């Protein structure tokens, strides 16, 4: 199968005497070299783009950071530009992270459920349309999520917010502020959860479907119920996949801009900072998008670019972690762990012998 996949360039032998009737076009390797160059160049371009994103953002952020009269990482003030520029990302970082994590906590169990439904529960004929329907959720533009989220979805969250606040209000995280505002972090999180649901579902689904038949049938043959089969065979096999899918979902939620921008109400400058998820706030992305009109001086722009750089680095780390988890212990388990990969060898040898 794989004799021609790049290891041995299957160029035409040039020493062959050209047959008079067999005209296959010019033999020159120029075309090959050009084409290979184009392909390599495109690959290199991708690497260059990612590197450039980091370098450019850093280069423009440094002057602004140097002028900053406040701790960039730990300050919650955001007053860039002017004579006394002071800005810090602590509040943005907190809101971004907490909203995305809550979104992930809500989305992942449901996504796993949906993935299990399409792979092992739904009738075969229903599975494909259902998967497509969930995928369509990913196709809805985020600005529509935002509008729908704040206008139609947020009101039904009011009882949930009130209930959580009255039950857990003694924890600062769930403390309810006096206002009856619905544009709070929690609302944004639930909408974000809906938005990342298709991503997490799609990846989980793929990995669950790859569970070796031998694992599943082995479990069933032992008399396991369907749920026990899933617990014994499918979930352990897909665990790393689900973890990385959740990380990718988290990455998506961290960078989501417009939906969050529309839903989250920006707190007044004079209000004390509130750590509760039932208060408003701003994420990196919504802050930048909200203030696009303020990009008038390089100092101000630099501050927002610095915030964007932090967002880039955070999503970079989260996504890399997800990829590394996949590479380390992805489906098929290249690095077996003690208690869960015991069946893999059997599955592989089974595949080799007819």
């Amino acid at each position, binding site marked *: 199968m794989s004799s021609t*996949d790049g290891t041995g360039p299957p160029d035409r032998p040039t020493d062959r005497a050209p047959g008079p009737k067999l005209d296959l076009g010019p033999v020159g390797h120029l075309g090959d070299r050009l084409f290979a160059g184009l392909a390599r160049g495109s690959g290199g371009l991708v690497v260059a783009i990612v590197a450039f994103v980091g370098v450019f953002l850093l280069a423009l952020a440094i002057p602004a950071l140097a002028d900053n009269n406040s701790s960039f990482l730990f300050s919650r003030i955001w007053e860039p530009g002017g004579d006394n520029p002071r800005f810090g990302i602590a509040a943005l970082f907190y809101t971004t992270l907490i909203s995305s994590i809550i979104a992930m906590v809500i989305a992942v169990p449901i996504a796993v459920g949906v993935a299990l439904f399409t792979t092992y529960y739904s009738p075969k004929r229903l599975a494909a349309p259902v998967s497509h329907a969930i995928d369509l959720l990913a196709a809805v533009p985020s600005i*529509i999520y935002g509008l729908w989220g704040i206008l139609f979805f947020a009101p039904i969250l009011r009882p949930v917010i009130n209930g959580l606040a009255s039950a857990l209000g003694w924890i600062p995280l769930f403390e309810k502020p006096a206002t009856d505002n619905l544009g709070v972090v929690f609302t944004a999180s639930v909408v974000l959860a809906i938005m990342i649901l298709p991503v997490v579902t799609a990846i989980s689904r793929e990995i669950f479907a790859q569970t070796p038949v031998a694992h599943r049938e082995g479990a069933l043959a032992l008399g396991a119920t*369907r749920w026990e089969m899933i617990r014994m065979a499918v979930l352990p096999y897909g665990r790393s996949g689900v973890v990385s899918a959740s990380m990718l979902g988290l990455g998506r939620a961290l960078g*989501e801009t417009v939906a969050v921008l529309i839903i989250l109400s920006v707190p007044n400058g004079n209000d004390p900072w509130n750590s509760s998820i039932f208060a408003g706030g701003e994420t990196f992305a919504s802050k930048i998008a909200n203030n696009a009109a303020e990009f008038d001086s390089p100092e101000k722009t630099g501050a927002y670019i610095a915030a*964007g750089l932090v*967002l880039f680095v955070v999503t970079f780390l989260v996504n890399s972690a997800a990829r590394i988890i996949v590479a380390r212990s992805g489906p098929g388990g290249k690095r077996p762990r003690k208690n869960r990969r015991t069946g893999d060898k059997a599955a592989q040898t089974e595949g080799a012998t007819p």
Partner: protein
Amino acid sequence: MTTLAANRPAYDGKTLDLTGKSGARAFRNTLATVLIVLCFLIALIPLLWILWTVVSKGYSLLLDANWWSQSQRGITVRRVGGGAYHAIMGTLIMSLICAAIAVPIAIMGAVYLVEYGKGTKAAKVVSFMIDILTGVPSIVAALFIYAVWITVLGFNRVGFAVSLSLVLLMLPVVLRSTEEMLKLVPDELREASYALGVPKWKTILKVVVPTAFGGIITGVMLGLARVMGETAPLLILVGYSKNINLNPFDGFMGALPTMINQDRTELALEPAADRVWAAALTLILLVLLLNLLARLIARFSTIKSK
């Protein structure tokens, strides 16, 4: 199954008790089934709800021919009338320019990964970078282009800058799907071509890419659908214009997402609200149409492997 289970001899399992089908186990099984079906239903609710909201509130304006042929020039939030022609054209122009730049790079990048660099360290680096690019938030892509296009190069905020930032978002989508499709092309086809003395580059252009063509188109459609709904780059890189502007290198440009964004603060006024939902419906229709087309093409052009 059930008869076998009933006949099984009793056994005191220590790790996981699978003997008999005790009430507790059967109950847990049923509970899991119910929960999983419930998850699925919960996941469907937002989709249906959003579609219903947008369709029911937006469809009336779409039936008006003016919607497809007029701009919002001179029309304020309190006035009825006008159309979305400027925004539809803006969205199409910006995303098509983006596609014109992103698709060739993406296809050649995929060719590199599958045909030239397979298994090499360099290909691994490229592959990793594509994964990173997939995760780059649209606002970061927009900021990057802002930094290059406006801060460093000193150009104005124009539609083309948006296209450039959309390239960053579209590239990984198209590249990954093209890569998957190229991988599916059977090696026998390549070998047959090589055996006839066809050079590698011609084999790729005339045999491999055409075989995978349907899949590549699917990827392009999905990529287009993704970038059309993006709002963040539009907010930062181009102003919203109510007039028709078809020149991506000069002046502000309307687009469907920014048309929604423009009037969303005036939803209390009926004409503005109608337009917001109609623009939302137009955008969803555009995106869904591309998605459906992509799936249709994918269905009819799957590579049949032996």
